[in-house]
């Protein structure tokens, strides 16, 4: 009964108001490359590009920072997109034959991409071809004519319909049926065969009344819509794939299913034309695949470009994804790693220009966007400032570093530039430059680190809307893998015809799964980092501005600590390359520690000030002094009965059994839910159903989905997995002396706290003397509910998290309060608890699972700044649950503040990938290639803020929309943005809406608080977690005793003298 007390507590109006000023939930922007793109469009006038996806999302990109997102109501594939040039409007065709007109509009001070009109083709089943009425079913192509006022729709039936675009209504009486066209075709071509679907419609740049129609059978017609007559007819006999009309209108190029393309002269007088002037099969003579699209671009030099996709020799290279670029005698076959969706050239579209003069070629692939500079000899690829394929190798972990110092930022940038030397023309060659980014230069720089399956760590500029790649660190070079031979072989084979050129960076194939990066930690002040991987490798690296050749010291650490009876059945450890190795400028390895057994590293933490790195696997944890290159501590966390941990990740029998079980469950579930749906009928049906159920209760659900209710036992499998590690300068032994400590939490709810003896640095030097570091077990806490410990953090006397290493000593953060009593926050998968230090006793707690039935997946301490008051901020605990909800709790009171639905609970990979930032933002993967950025803070919001000059011909005025795509209404992946605990907006005006037109509030919003943010430690605490009653073993009774312990006692002896406090 007393439980309900806390619900009533929420009534404090002042606190409610403060909460509104601190917390707000928005999904702000999607970073990365759209998942499953299906359509591409480019507006040469505004220089903006649109990408449509199979889930019905529309994304418009311009200059970096200019982004618009929309989502069709029906999750249908976007098959075509066409910009109304210069109008900021785009017409989309979905695979359900509906047309949608999207506009970049402005209302309520917020502008965003909005669906203005939709048109559903009337389907007339049964009338196809039989009656004179042609059906509009199955639109195959769309062409905008007359500056976008009218659209021509080609259909599968061969008819062409005309549509008034401003209203999206069908223009009756203008429809062009295939019969009308056939009338102008000679009899011997007709021979009773249909023309087939309309494959291509092309407009003329200068004469909008003329349309070039290509039918599937091969017939090409230049149709004059004003005169309603066929001006020219080309009697092609090869199945048509696409058509391109040269800008002068004198030449027509058609591509065909046999891998050939044909050039037709349109300026000769004889009509119909029976033969093309040239017909070539570029990759002949053997059978080739179809050329899906062909473009013909003229140049003043007279050497025109022919760009086409496909057409590869079927037998030898039929599986390649290629686009060929041919100019005069130069042919390059661009070889991509994923399917080609579409491509366009950026060229002059002004009617007065005589030539196309293409500047760039943009190719949209299934997994990335590649842009080539066609004006620079060699056609180099232009690095994309956004739309980077995050998943060029699968993302295995991610971390966010906030407030990166300018010096480190510049060093990382320069390392990245050395890696990818920019072409001379530089960033200016990025051709998609529409719109203006109105967002202020971010006042603080955020770095997103992603670890990948291939052993690389990528550094991304996450300060703004455009997620820009900065630098790529590869750890594979340190290890001997057998992939190198394969690479050289492949290269040797590629010198032949066709002239392949590998383009793009999407490479889904991992060389060796052991290289996969599991955990990353970066010290932003010393530019030192730790990268830990799947085979138990822990690599300490340091940023160096010059290339170097050096050997890497290798140490191995046995975490089993001579436990008997275990055999590791998993993978071997990686064998490092010995001897001096060349390292380019950038992060260079300093030390390599290999855990034994080589299980995946599950937790890692770095303290650059102390020169220590701690790491944990499923077997135990270790502490390594990387300055002296010597191990300090190894501790086995295995439960004696835990045999599963030793099997390694390759226990196939187990996983097969599990997956079978799961699929059966799913089947049962779907059956059960099917039943539920049926119930939603009338009351009579309900009553009947009820009667039926009463009649035969035996066969209702023979084996229902059921869950066993049993407390977690101590010997659950993988109980020894180390879930989190943490360094803190705090009071572990007594209240008078603080000192370095290390904390480790395991899957079974155990917390180990070690007192460290780190030799103090001499005055004026940051290097600590070369003396051994000692570690002595100080305390051991067993959470009685035995849930995995997700995170540990120490709070200072004021209840604030301790600052990061160096922050306090370099005056970058407020020094922690060492006077008041410290406390340790232990977050398990089920509960949060704050314990006092040094005497461990429970201070506050919150039992999340017992109350909500959800489990903690990720937690982080974050600083939330108030929108109302410039210098007011609170440190809170942000938590993501297994249901995809985000909860925020006060610290150290652990009172629930707000909670929001963030990720669909079915989206397990999204939940697993979530990472919080220090200032109340977060990222999670909505697809393998896209991060969704969300914001829990009412002040610190990163979202598109841009403008686009558009003009609509109707009102003939140029309207400048300051477009603001804020609190995203729809999300491309269909994740509903429902706010679970909305704060009623009475009295507190939404700062976002207010600030949209005036730059000042927006500025305030966009400048994340860099001053007060420094007070919070970057405790992006770790992953997955659970907690009940605690046994605290105090290993250090009195302080004198502890002194003695520190010096003399080995760990085992310490254990013997332990006092068990219960």
């Amino acid at each position, binding site marked *: 009964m007393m*439980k309900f007390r806390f619900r009533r507590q929420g009534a404090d109006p002042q606190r409610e108001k403060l909460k509104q000023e601190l917390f707000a939930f928005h999904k702000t922007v999607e970073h990365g490359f759209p998942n499953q793109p299906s359509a591409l469009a480019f507006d040469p006038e505004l220089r903006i590009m649109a990408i449509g996806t199979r889930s019905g999302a529309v994304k418009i990109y311009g200059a970096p920072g200019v982004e618009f997102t929309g989502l069709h109501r029906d999750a249908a594939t976007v098959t075509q997109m066409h910009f109304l040039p210069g109008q900021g409007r785009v017409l989309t065709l979905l695979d359900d034959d509906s047309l949608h007109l999207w506009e970049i509009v402005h209302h309520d001070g917020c502008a965003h991409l909005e669906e203005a009109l939709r048109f559903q083709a009337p389907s007339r089943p049964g009338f196809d071809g039989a009656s004179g009425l042609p059906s509009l079913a199955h639109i195959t192509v769309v062409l905008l004519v007359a500056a976008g006022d009218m659209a021509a729709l080609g259909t599968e039936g061969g008819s062409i319909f005309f549509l008034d675009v401003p209203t999206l209504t069908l223009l009756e009486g203008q429809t062009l049926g295939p019969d009308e066209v056939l009338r102008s075709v000679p009899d011997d071509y007709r021979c009773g065969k249909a023309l087939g679907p309309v494959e291509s419609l092309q407009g003329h740049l200068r004469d909008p009344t003329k349309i070039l129609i290509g039918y599937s059978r091969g017939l090409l017609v230049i149709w004059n819509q004003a005169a309603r007559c066929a001006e020219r007819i080309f009697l092609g006999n090869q199945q048509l794939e696409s058509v391109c009309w040269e800008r002068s209108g004198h030449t027509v190029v058609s591509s065909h299913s046999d891998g050939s393309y044909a050039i037709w002269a349109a300026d000769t007088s004889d009509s119909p034309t029976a033969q093309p002037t040239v017909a070539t099969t570029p990759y002949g003579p053997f059978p080739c695949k179809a050329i899906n699209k062909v473009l013909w671009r003229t140049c003043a030099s007279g050497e025109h470009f022919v760009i086409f996709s496909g057409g590869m020799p079927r037998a030898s290279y039929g599986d390649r994804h290629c686009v060929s670029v041919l100019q005069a005698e130069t042919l390059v076959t661009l070889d991509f790693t994923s399917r080609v969706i579409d491509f366009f050239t950026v060229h002059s579209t002004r009617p007065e220009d005589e030539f196309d003069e293409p500047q760039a070629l943009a190719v949209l692939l299934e997994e990335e966007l590649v842009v080539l500079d066609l004006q620079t000899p060699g056609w180099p690829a232009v690095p994309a400032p956004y739309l980077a394929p995050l998943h060029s190798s699968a993302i295995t972990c991610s971390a966010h570093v906030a407030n990166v110092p300018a010096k480190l930022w510049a060093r990382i940038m320069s390392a990245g530039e050395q890696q990818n030397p920019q072409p001379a023309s530089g960033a200016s060659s990025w051709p998609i430059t529409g719109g203006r980014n109105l967002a202020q230069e971010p006042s603080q720089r955020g770095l997103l680190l992603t670890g990948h399956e291939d052993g690389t760590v990528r550094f991304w500029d996450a300060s703004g809307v455009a997620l820009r790649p900065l630098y790529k660190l590869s750890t594979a070079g340190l290890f001997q893998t057998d992939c190198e031979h394969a690479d050289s072989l492949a290269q040797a084979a590629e010198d032949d015809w066709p002239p392949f050129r590998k383009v793009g960076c999407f490479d889904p194939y991992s060389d060796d799964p052991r290289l996969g990066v599991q955990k990353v930690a970066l010290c932003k002040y010393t530019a030192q980092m730790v990268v830990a991987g799947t085979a138990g490798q822990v690599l300490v690296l340091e940023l160096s501005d010059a290339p170097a050749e050096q050997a890497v010291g290798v140490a191995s650490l046995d975490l089993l600590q001579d436990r008997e009876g275990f055999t590791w059945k998993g993978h071997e450890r990686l064998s490092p390359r010995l001897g001096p190795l060349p390292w380019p400028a950038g992060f260079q390895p300093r030390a390599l520690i290999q855990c034994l057994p080589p299980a995946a590293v599950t937790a890692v933490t770095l303290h650059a000030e102390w020169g220590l790195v701690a790491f944990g696997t499923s077997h135990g944890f270790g502490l390594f002094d990387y300055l002296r290159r010597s191990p300090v501590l190894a501790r086995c966390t295995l439960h004696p009965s835990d045999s599963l941990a030793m099997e390694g990740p390759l226990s196939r029998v187990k996983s097969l059994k599990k997956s079978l079980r799961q699929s059966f469950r799913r089947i049962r579930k779907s059956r059960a839910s099917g039943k539920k749906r049926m119930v939603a009928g009338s009351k009579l049906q309900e009553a009947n159903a009820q009667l039926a159920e009463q009649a035969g209760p035996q066969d209702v659900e023979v084996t229902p989905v059921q869950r066993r209710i049993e407390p977690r036992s101590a010997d659950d499998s993988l109980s020894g997995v180390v879930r989190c590690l943490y360094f803190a300068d705090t009071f572990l032994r007594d209240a008078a002396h603080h000192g370095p400590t290390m904390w480790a939490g395991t899957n079974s709810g155990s917390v180990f706290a070690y007192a460290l003896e780190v030799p103090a640095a001499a005055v004026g030097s940051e290097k600590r003397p070369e003396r051994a570091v000692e570690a002595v077990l100080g305390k051991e806490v067993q959470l009685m509910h035995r849930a995995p410990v997700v995170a540990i953090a120490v709070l200072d006397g004021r209840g604030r998290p301790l600052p990061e290493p160096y922050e306090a000593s370099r005056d970058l953060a407020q020094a922690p309060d060492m006077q008041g009593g410290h406390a340790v926050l232990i977050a398990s998968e089920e509960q949060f608890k704050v314990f006092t230090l040094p005497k461990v006793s429970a201070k506050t707690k919150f039992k999340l699972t017992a109350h909500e039935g959800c489990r903690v997946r990720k937690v982080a301490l974050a600083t939330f700044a108030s929108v109302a008051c410039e210098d007011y901020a609170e440190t809170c605990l942000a938590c993501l649950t297994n249901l995809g909800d985000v909860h925020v709790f006060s610290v150290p009171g652990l009172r629930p503040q707000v909670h929001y639905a963030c990720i669909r609970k079915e989206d397990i990979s999204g939940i697993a990938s979530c990472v919080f930032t220090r200032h109340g933002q977060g990222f999670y993967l909505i697809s393998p290639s896209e991060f969704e950025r969300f914001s829990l803070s009412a002040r610190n919001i990163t979202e598109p803020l841009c403008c686009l000059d558009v003009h609509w011909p109707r009102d003939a005025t140029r309207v400048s929309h300051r477009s603001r795509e804020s609190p995203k209404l729809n999300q491309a992946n269909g994740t509903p943005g429902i706010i679970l605990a909305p704060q009623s907006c009475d009295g507190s005006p939404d700062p976002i809406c207010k600030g949209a037109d005036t730059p000042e509030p927006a500025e305030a919003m966009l400048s994340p608080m860099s001053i007060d943010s420094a007070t919070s430690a970057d405790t992006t605490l770790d992953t997955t977690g659970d907690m009940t009653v*605690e046994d605290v073993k105090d290993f250090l009774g009195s302080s004198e005793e502890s002194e003695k312990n520190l010096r003399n006692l080995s760990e085992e002896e310490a254990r013997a003298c332990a006092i068990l406090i219960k």
Partner: protein
Amino acid sequence: MNRGHRHGAGSGCLGTMEVKSKDGTEFRRFSLERSKPGKFEEFYGLLQHVHKIPNVDVLVGYADIHGDLLPINNDDNYHKAVSTANPLLRIFIQKKEEADYSAFGTDTLIKKKNVLTNVLRPDNHRKKPHIVISLPQDFRPVSSIIDVDILPETHRRVRLYKYGTEKPLGFYIRDGASVRVTPHGLEKVPGIFISRLVPGGLAQSTGLLAVNDEVLEVNGIEVSGKSLDQVTDMMIANSRNLIITVRPANQRNNVVRNSRTSGSSGQSTDNSLPSCAPPPEPSLEPGEEDSDDDDIVIEDSGEPRQIPRAAPSAESLESLTQVELSFESGQNGFIPANEVSLPPVASGARTEFETSAPDQKLLEEDGTVITL
């Protein structure tokens, strides 16, 4: 010695009662004021005095009318002993260090009376299983029915105590649908049900939970609107002190309240047991104590080492009694089998926390629930 059913001279006198106290082989006789027996402490001192064993810890027992050796260790059972002694109160004293706890219990004295028989036929004696029953303070509660006064009669709030025992909690839950009669007619709502009991598990051995019981609350939190997995996690998170409110599938065994103002513990409907202790204050109820534990109200300096709460020993006997009583009432079948009138679940426990007990009649009548 104990054979002597002496009708003492003074037994007939009003006010006094003869006491025969035996310590080992020695015995003392004295008399007590029947109307004012005094406190147990005084009586204990008196015994030490008359037996000349000051400062020796002893266990005090008495023979009740059925010839059972029962302990005297507090005022209640002392008064009970005095009031039922007819005519003689026979006291047995054992030194604590040599105490034979097994001596206490039913038939213990009768057995002793048959010493001769046992001597004559020793085989018979050996075959008899030797039942060891520990002292009340050694009991720990296994399960209890709580909050009977504030719940509708058709609901049952069961508390399962899971200690470090080997016995599993031992039950499974599943999704299901329950049909309710609301003002809008029949309404089918999803619910969580107990789907299976593990033989030999705690849940089964208590007899308080059964297959197809609908789970309404877990430790005071309503489960409506929560998924099966959520409810599973809630139960597991609370597994050390699990309080589940169910609507039993079998509504025939409900505890019937004859007094709405009784304490929160299930009170027996069998008033023939005069010794039944008065129900404890609601605030002393172990469930209550734990609600506090679940609460996020900050308690200062709760020492973690204190957190493993010992079983509230005062309650243990009480709880045990309740379990037995609920069985009895069940067997008696107080509610007609076709009784289906129930309040809707939504108005369940929480509303009633705030309403006073007399209002409950009203609440019970404003809705009906059909349990399938």
